[in-house]
């Protein structure tokens, strides 16, 4: 989709594009944090139709992409065990580990099941008392209440054969990491809508104050993304920076208190390694001491794992918004969704997968892509 008349509501979209044109007087670099937004932007050609002074760079908000390699390798080792039923969201199956992926482990006889909800894994644990059932608990804040609930339920039900391999990541420390980088170009952020449905956006206020960049909570539909861009550019052009909400139908300032309470009970903050980016202090959640018995990394001694990333993969630079996917030499050649070198080419939210799916190969000046 590259034409305005293909939008569900072309009149509203046209007005937003026109308004962004009207207010934009100089070049601005905006980062959309969430991979879902990246896909919406590329699929709908927003980057092509937008005022040429607005540059969108794609953020690290794809949990599948940033789950560290050693955690993937641990998942592979646990999933290969004969006594284990390994449950995961579907997008994790083809994420490359050092030598293989979960799909290959499944092909070699591993009992790996794709679940829609973490509660499905609880049901599997109840139905299979003689197996260890391990759930791969990844995600941003949006997914944390669901994952927390499954551990909470397991403890309440006394399910001793359930555990979780946890690799939760958090948006605000990632935004701070991008802003603290000496090569940062980002001047404003579209914050991830559903993360803020859970957490609210109070925690972005101190970041806005410290770094002086606008952060606007933004939804996922094309019109939502355009409205988020409009509000961000309005702030930038006026020389102000505040935390604003362009997705009020699903987000309020304080977020979902019931969800936050369970998260606070089940998880605690930890330093987290992000695949392709490195360690970001305080950027993850792991199981709190009360739920430590449910930690699969402790329950299964998978030992020290020697990890190995392919040298030509530049997904780390893509995740930090330093390069666009099609600037990587391997893009669309050695690296495709069927044979991915990095997780950004695997996930339905990875920026490389979005560029590949919607045909964004390298652009030659004057030739429309």
């Amino acid at each position: 989709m590259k034409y305005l008349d293909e939008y569900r509501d072309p009149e509203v979209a046209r007005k937003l594009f026109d308004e962004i044109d009207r207010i934009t007087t100089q070049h601005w670099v905006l980062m959309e944090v969430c991979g879902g937004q990246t896909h919406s932007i590329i699929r709908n050609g927003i980057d092509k139709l937008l005022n040429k002074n607005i540059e969108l760079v794609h953020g690290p908000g794809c949990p599948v992409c940033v789950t560290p390699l050693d955690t993937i390798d641990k998942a592979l080792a646990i999933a290969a065990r004969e006594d284990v039923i390994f449950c995961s969201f579907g997008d994790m199956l083809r994420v490359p580990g050092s030598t293989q992926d979960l799909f290959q482990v499944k092909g070699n006889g591993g009992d790996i099941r794709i679940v829609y909800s973490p509660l499905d894994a609880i049901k599997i644990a109840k139905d299979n008392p003689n197996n260890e059932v391990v759930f791969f608990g990844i995600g941003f804040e949006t997914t944390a209440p669901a994952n927390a609930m499954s551990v909470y339920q397991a403890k309440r039900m006394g399910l001793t054969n359930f555990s979780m391999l946890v690799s939760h990541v958090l948006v605000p420390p990632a935004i701070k990491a991008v802003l603290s980088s000496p090569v940062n170009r980002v001047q404003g952020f579209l914050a991830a809508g559903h993360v803020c449905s859970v957490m609210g956006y109070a925690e972005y206020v101190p970041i806005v104050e410290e770094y002086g960049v606008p952060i606007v909570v933004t939804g996922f539909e094309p019109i939502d993304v355009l409205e988020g861009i409009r509000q961000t550019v309005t702030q930038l052009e006026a020389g102000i920076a505040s935390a604003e909400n362009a997705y009020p139908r699903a987000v309020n300032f304080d977020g979902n208190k019931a969800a936050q309470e369970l998260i606070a009970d089940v998880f605690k903050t930890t330093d987290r390694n992000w695949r392709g980016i490195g360690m970001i202090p305080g950027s993850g959640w792991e199981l709190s001491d009360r739920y430590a018995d449910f930690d699969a990394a402790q329950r299964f001694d998978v030992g020290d794992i020697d990890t190995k990333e392919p040298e030509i993969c530049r997904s780390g630079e893509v995740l930090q918004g330093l390069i666009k996917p099609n600037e990587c030499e391997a893009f669309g050649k050695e690296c495709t969704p069927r044979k991915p070198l990095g997780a950004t080419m695997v996930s339905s939210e990875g920026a490389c997968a979005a560029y590949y799916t919607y045909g964004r190969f390298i652009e030659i000046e004057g030739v429309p892509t």
Partner: protein
Amino acid sequence: MCLGIPGKIVEVYEIDGTRMGKVNFDGIVKEICLSFVPEAEVDDYTIVHVGFGITKVDEESATETLALMKEMGVLEAELDATAALAEEEAIAAGKERK
């Protein structure tokens, strides 16, 4: 991963003390945990992520979002883990044939 799908609550009940319900996503009805949206009742709309209601949402925006998701073909893929598995297996089979 953070995709949320709005649906209409058609039934609310408890299972072992947990607030659960049936939610209708444009004809696909699924059992959803409603613990985090204690204020949401039958006929309300909620945005659902991996089987959990995370926030209430009004009917107009919910139906618009659903129509858009259906158009893009993401609705069934997101709601049905088995469909996702079948797709993965088809891709893997393609890989082996090569």
